[in-house]
């Protein structure tokens, strides 16, 4: 059995801002783009969440929900610095660290002998060190694999430490709602619901054939997850090449206009996801379309910053390749490789980078 930790900072950007200005701690605070520029919320603190505000929400809507919301623009350089300090703590424990974003990482501590090999103690140590050295609270999940570790870190947030030992894995999964499984979005959840599958126990009761019939390749994955099987390794040297968001729709989008309308929430989600990665430099933006006959197409264009309207242009030309109902839409960006980013630019300090 492996020992995997999933560490996740609690409302990271907001936490950094509250650390630097404690007067913000008890007021609703959000980090994000301004409403005038049609920005979205990247992170908000718990007082703001009480108003129903959450990440990826358009800032304009957040301000309607909570007019006294304190909105700050993101300071990615600062967040990157704090993130590096926290990552350094992870690396003191093990070299097997897979960062998922600025505020989130998997650690494989199977071979770690410190703390008598107790993953629970390691998790406690990480929390203490992160708080002491950076002032940031992290939640940690401990489990025998990645998918359970991620669920565990979220289990008693904020300031959580939740352990799923191998002996309790069975009972934990049995009661787990299927919506908690990685890859189960609204469309799959609805479909599972109509099949009368609400928990992983229900899922386990299904024969594999039936899952394959209904969900294709993903049926096998569902079957495995329901049995607590997730062999994905903690991947150390992975360079992120793209950031994207996609959705499979409950019902196919019949017309082109439906597709354009569906793009907006995806773009908002993409902005939020980019913020979680510290707004990395981008080289291209793209739109992915899968039609109801399962044919897929991707259309991309060079870009230095996300231009929302360009996604609509890309969708337009991608849609024309099929001109039929759409099953899945995705928007994303390809990132500038880390190596290429070592080359400094002449105009990086604000000379026009648009259009």
């Amino acid at each position, binding site marked *: 059995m492996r020992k995997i930790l999933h560490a996740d900072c609690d409302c990271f950007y907001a936490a950094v801002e509250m650390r630097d200005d404690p007067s913000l701690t008890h007021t609703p605070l959000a980090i994000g783009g301004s409403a005038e520029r049609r920005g979205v919320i990247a992170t908000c603190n718990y007082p703001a969440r009480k108003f129903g505000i959450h990440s990826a929400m358009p800032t304009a809507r957040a301000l309607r929900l909570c007019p006294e919301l304190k909105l700050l623009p993101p300071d990615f350089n600062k967040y990157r610095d704090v993130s590096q300090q926290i990552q350094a703590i992870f690396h003191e424990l093990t070299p097997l660290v897979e960062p998922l974003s600025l505020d989130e990482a998997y650690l494989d501590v199977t071979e770690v002998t410190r703390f008598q090999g107790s993953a629970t103690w390691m998790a406690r140590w990480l929390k203490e060190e992160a708080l002491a050295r950076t002032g940031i609270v992290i939640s940690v999940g401990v489990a025998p694999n990645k998918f359970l570790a991620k669920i565990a870190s979220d289990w008693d947030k904020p300031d959580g430490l939740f352990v799923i030992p191998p002996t309790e894995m069975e009972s934990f999964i049995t009661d787990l709602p299927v919506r908690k499984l990685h890859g189960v979005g609204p469309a799959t959840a609805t479909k599972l619901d109509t099949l009368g599958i609400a928990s992983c126990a229900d899922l386990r009761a299904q024969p594999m054939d039936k899952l394959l019939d209904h969900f294709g390749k993903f049926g096998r994955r569902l079957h495995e997850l329901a049995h607590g099987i997730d062999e994905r390794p903690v991947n150390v040297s992975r360079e992120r090449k793209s950031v994207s968001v996609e959705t499979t729709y409950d019902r196919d989008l019949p017309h082109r206009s439906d597709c354009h309308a569906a793009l907006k929430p995806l773009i908002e989600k993409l902005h939020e996801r980019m913020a979680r990665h510290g707004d990395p430099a981008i080289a291209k933006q793209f739109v992915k379309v899968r039609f109801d006959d399962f044919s897929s197409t991707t259309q991309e264009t*060079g870009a230095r910053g996300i231009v929302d309207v360009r996604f609509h242009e890309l969708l337009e030309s991608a849609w024309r390749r099929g001109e039929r109902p759409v099953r899945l839409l995705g928007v994303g960006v390809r990132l500038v490789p880390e190596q*290429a980013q*070592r*080359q400094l630019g*002449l105009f990086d300090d604000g000379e026009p980078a648009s259009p």
Partner: protein
Amino acid sequence: MKFSISREALLRPLTLVAGVVERRQTLPVLSNVLIEVQNEQLALTGTDLEVELIGRATPALVDEPGSVTVPARKLMDICKSLPDQSDISFSLEDGRVVLRAGRSRFTLSTLPVAEFPNIEDGQNDTTLSLPRGTLKYLIDSTSFAMAQQDVRYYLNGMLLELANHLVRTVATDGHRLAVCERSADIEMEASRKLIVPRKGVLELTRLLDGSDEPVELMLGSNHIRANTGEFTFTSKLVDGKFPDYDRVIPKGGDKVFIAERGELRQNLARTAILSNEKYRGVRLHLEENNLKVMANNPEQEEAEENVSIEYSGDALEIGFNVGYLIDVLNVLDSDRMQMTLSDANSSALMEEPGGGDARYVVMPMRL
């Protein structure tokens, strides 16, 4: 239409005009060259709708004036491969062009002359004249730094600045910048800044020789035309705001060294062999009277070179894309090169010792 011309008289204008014609075209007629024969004069025109080039030649004999369009590349390939000094005759027969030379005969397809597009040029508001050598020098000193297919479309070209008694060219791809200026006998009421697209710049310099013969420039609000008599070149302009070059020229760097240009270039070229093939980073270690250049690649192979320089000052370690340095050393018009640096994250200035017509700014790479 019927005329004959010597291979040598035809080949240079045809080659240059065919250079404008793109291999892949949206409109079939754009693959063709327009041939017009009138008043003992032959004019060849090629266009891609952004750049148009007309080349002129004198036929040996004109039997019947007229005009026609034929596939540019095929015509050029045929003329190139004919023997030297061939006399080539052209005639339009039943909608096809028949080309004869010695015992060779070729029949080429045609497309209607009416379909051949004219580049929209509008009004010229300014006309001025420069020595061809001046314009060629300015372009050749800077054009290597133009961007290629950058989303900042205004960088995919060259800034041509015309001021009272001064001509300046600027090119940058966002990582390095080249600026060159020369005095010229021109009078401008107000200075003009134009962005000539990359392709236009590269075609224009091919037309120019290093002589003091004039090239006439005609400027319009959205195009530039250059006339040498033999050639008339027209290019649309890039509509955009070029970055302020003066703002990025470093001032006040405190580490100044002088190196032999040719020696340093060879030194860098050797080191480059073992740099990362794609990103081409090299480290420069600047120390008293010595510059150490080092590179390594993902295979952990290493190169180290030392070159004597004139330098007394603090040591500095700084990284560069070696290609950017070599490009500058290739075009600098002096035996020695002066480089001014301040720190590992700030741009370097390369120029002739003491400063010359041309200045080059290169941003470093993080090591």
